[in-house]
């Protein structure tokens, strides 16, 4: 508790400066209290909106996770734990799901949250506005509220991943009294972002910061611990590092800190670093190959690409060890991962042998074939990955010609199959039926839709196994089916899987309870506190 005069003077000066800027700083925390305080952190890039039911880009989810809640949360093993629902049950036939809500839940405008709001969000709003929630919640046949605190969903057919879809990024609850009968996407209330989470929006100065304050009527006694959260917009990578280093911000997440800076900052005595809290997303980095066109339509070529890439070196040189080598379509962080699949160790000789077998002989300059490569326009990291891949493939005679484009152009080209090779980072979303099968099943080859089966892979046996695994009700049966399909898909290599990318979350040592669930920094932060 002791604070000497010099420290106190510093605080006074900082407070004076902060009041000029109109942004409060963590004075209470600095004085050593365990309750209250201000959490300064970063949003990068600045979100376009905060309504997570409508936009699911990462910055929206990170900030919106404090504002909107859902029925469940998930521990690091992706097992459900109570959210807005204090208990839940599934009928033995796998068709009926019953949730009991906590009492006294209120929205930020003071109105109570009841089972009606839950049903309205799941059956009316999300199927219309939320691309990855749509295929899950359209499986609901009927939804009923026997009393204001009970919700009963009946499904058309069993779908075991259903219970995995109630985190605040997939199934945020929005107030029925505000959205009913309106156009959800253009409702003016979207600017106010009214949810039931522990924090509510106070002010958003575009280009500068988003200011969240405590929701006084929060249903969990004693939460939230801190008074306010300020998400600062800091576009420059070097400036973000400095802000963390000097303690201007107490928390960074996702890509806020560049890979090459992580090791240096992790050594600083005032910071903690963890790569936990991304299990639900389990981002999978891969080299996408357009299976429709030559030479990518030949399995031997795709296997050669796998053998040619030294993924260990990619992990060390480009990602500075932040990740793990991906062995197949399902991340080892997701359920139903199978490790006994065909292994593609780094072997340029095997790659060359396969290319020779295909009849792709090296020319005078050692090059066998030239393939266009669409460089993913998501920052310098992807550019470095592209350069790494080009050098790796050049060693076995595959010459990648880079093509540049902007984000809109990249999405258009990939989703309309107008590419040969590109890199992509795709989330696994807790269950293979939600986040994995979408990239491999032939029924999801849908032109113009991003994150569908854009590679154009089609194997009837894989289709059948993926479908059966999605609807099987026992976990043992599902594991068996997913293990079988992983072996097939890894043999076919429709996509060259590179890494299970890790993201660093940095916190000030005094900041506690940031990473407590599988969605980490997207969580509500009700329990986050300063020591």
């Amino acid at each position, binding site marked *: 508790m002791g604070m000497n005069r010099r420290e106190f003077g510093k605080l006074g000066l900082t407070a004076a400066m902060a009041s000029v800027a109109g942004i409060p700083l963590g004075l209470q925390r600095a004085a050593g209290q365990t309750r209250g305080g201000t959490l300064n952190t970063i949003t990068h890039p600045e979100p376009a909106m905060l309504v997570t039911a409508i936009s699911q880009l990462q910055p929206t989810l990170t900030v919106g996770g404090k504002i909107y809640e859902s029925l469940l949360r998930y521990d690091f093993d992706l097992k459900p734990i109570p959210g807005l629902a204090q208990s839940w049950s599934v009928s033995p036939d796998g068709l009926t799901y019953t949730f009991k809500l906590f009492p006294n839940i209120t929205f930020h405008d003071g109105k109570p949250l009841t089972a009606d709001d839950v049903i309205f969000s799941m059956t009316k709003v999300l199927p219309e506005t939320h691309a990855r929630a749509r295929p899950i919640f359209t499986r609901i046949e009927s939804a009923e509220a026997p009393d204001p605190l009970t919700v009963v969903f009946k499904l058309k057919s069993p779908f075991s991943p259903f219970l995995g879809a109630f985190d605040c990024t997939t199934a945020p609850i929005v107030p029925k009294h505000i959205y009913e009968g309106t156009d959800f996407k253009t409702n003016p209330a979207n600017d106010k972002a009214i949810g039931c989470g522990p924090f509510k929006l106070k002010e958003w100065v575009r280009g500068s910061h988003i200011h969240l304050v405590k929701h006084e009527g929060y249903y969990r006694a004693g939460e939230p611990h801190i008074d306010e959260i300020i998400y600062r917009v800091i576009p420059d990578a070097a400036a973000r590092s400095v802000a963390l280093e000097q303690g201007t911000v107490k928390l960074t997440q996702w890509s806020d800190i560049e890979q090459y800076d992580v090791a240096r900052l992790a050594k600083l005595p005032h910071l903690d670093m963890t790569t936990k809290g991304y299990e639900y997303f389990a981002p999978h980095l891969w080299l996408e190959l357009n299976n429709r066109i030559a030479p990518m339509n030949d399995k031997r070529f795709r296997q050669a690409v796998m053998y040619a890439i030294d993924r260990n070196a990619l992990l060390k040189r480009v990602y500075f060890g932040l990740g793990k080598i991906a062995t197949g379509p399902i991340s080892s962080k997701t359920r139903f991962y199978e490790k006994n699949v065909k292994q593609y160790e780094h072997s340029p000789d095997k790659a060359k042998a396969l290319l020779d077998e295909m009849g792709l002989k090296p020319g005078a300059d050692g090059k066998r074939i030239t393939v266009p490569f669409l460089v993913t326009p998501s920052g310098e990291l992807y550019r470095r990955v*592209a350069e790494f891949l080009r050098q790796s493939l*050049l060693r076995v005679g595959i010459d990648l010609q880079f093509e540049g484009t902007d984000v809109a152009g990249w999405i258009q080209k990939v989703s309309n199959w107008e590419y040969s090779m590109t890199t992509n980072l795709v989330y696994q979303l807790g269950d293979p039926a939600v986040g994995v099968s979408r990239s491999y099943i032939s029924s999801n080859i849908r032109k113009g839709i991003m994150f569908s089966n854009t590679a154009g892979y089609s194997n009837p046996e894989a289709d059948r196994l993926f479908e059966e695994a999605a609807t099987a009700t026992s976990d043992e049966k599902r594991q068996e089916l997913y293990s079988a399909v992983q072996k097939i898909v890894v043999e076919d290599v429709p996509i060259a899987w590179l890494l299970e990318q890790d993201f660093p979350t940095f916190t000030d040592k005094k900041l506690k309870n940031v990473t407590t669930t599988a969605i980490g920094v997207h969580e509500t932060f009700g329990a986050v506190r300063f020591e």
Partner: protein
Amino acid sequence: MKTLASFLRHPAGVIGLVILTGVVVLAIVAPTLFPVDPWDMVAAPFEPPFDGETWLGSDMLGRDVAACIAYGARVSLLIGVSSTLAALVIGVTVGAIAGYFGGRVDEVLMRLVELFQTIPGFILAILLVATLGPSLSNVILAIGAVSWPQLARLTRAEFLRLRSREFVQAAVCQGQPPLSVVLRHILPNAVSPIIVTGSLMIASSILIESALSFMGLGDPNLMSWGFMIGASRSVMRQAWWMSVFPGIAIFLTVLAINLVGEGLNDTLNPRLSRKARAA
């Protein structure tokens, strides 16, 4: 010969020529000096300069900064020279036609030049490359497209000055066709200022190319100085060498070309060079 001797009496020009020769030699011997592909990751990432296996350190992927600079010299010189040639062809042709024929043709062509001159050159170059796609030929085209108006104006002014001279009139009276008059009588007398402006234009082309590459609009298959600086900008604090050395390369090359250009100006300008010879 006289011109060369006069140029060699110009100290700044000679210094420029020496540096420029160095850069050209570096570009020529790059494959001998660094036999591996500059994109190859030959060392550990973030290796500081002057110790270890690389002379000027390695970049964030472990590429040799010295090799990148050597190969970057080829790109910079290639783009500088070819885009200037493109600008020369367009600019001199337009300027010659406008200045020789005058009247309505001149009127139309000069309005076209003004149109180009009202658009900020660099913005137009960005726009062209972003629209056409970043490739070597498009970058050359874009730089050429923003550089030619200056040359067109200069050539037109020279042609207007020479058009009414007696020797030109004489050639016209002898019945020589316009093309022959232009190429054999006017152009040779207008060439000095064009050479001086053209040489300075190489420098500005290299700068534009570096700026485009810095912004990620260069040909992604070519190692260029601007790209090196752009890619390592964010690691300035940890690894100064990745951006400082290519920066020095750009600085020296552009400075050298400017010095040579100035030297040429003083040599080819009859008044200045006579003074120098008298002294």
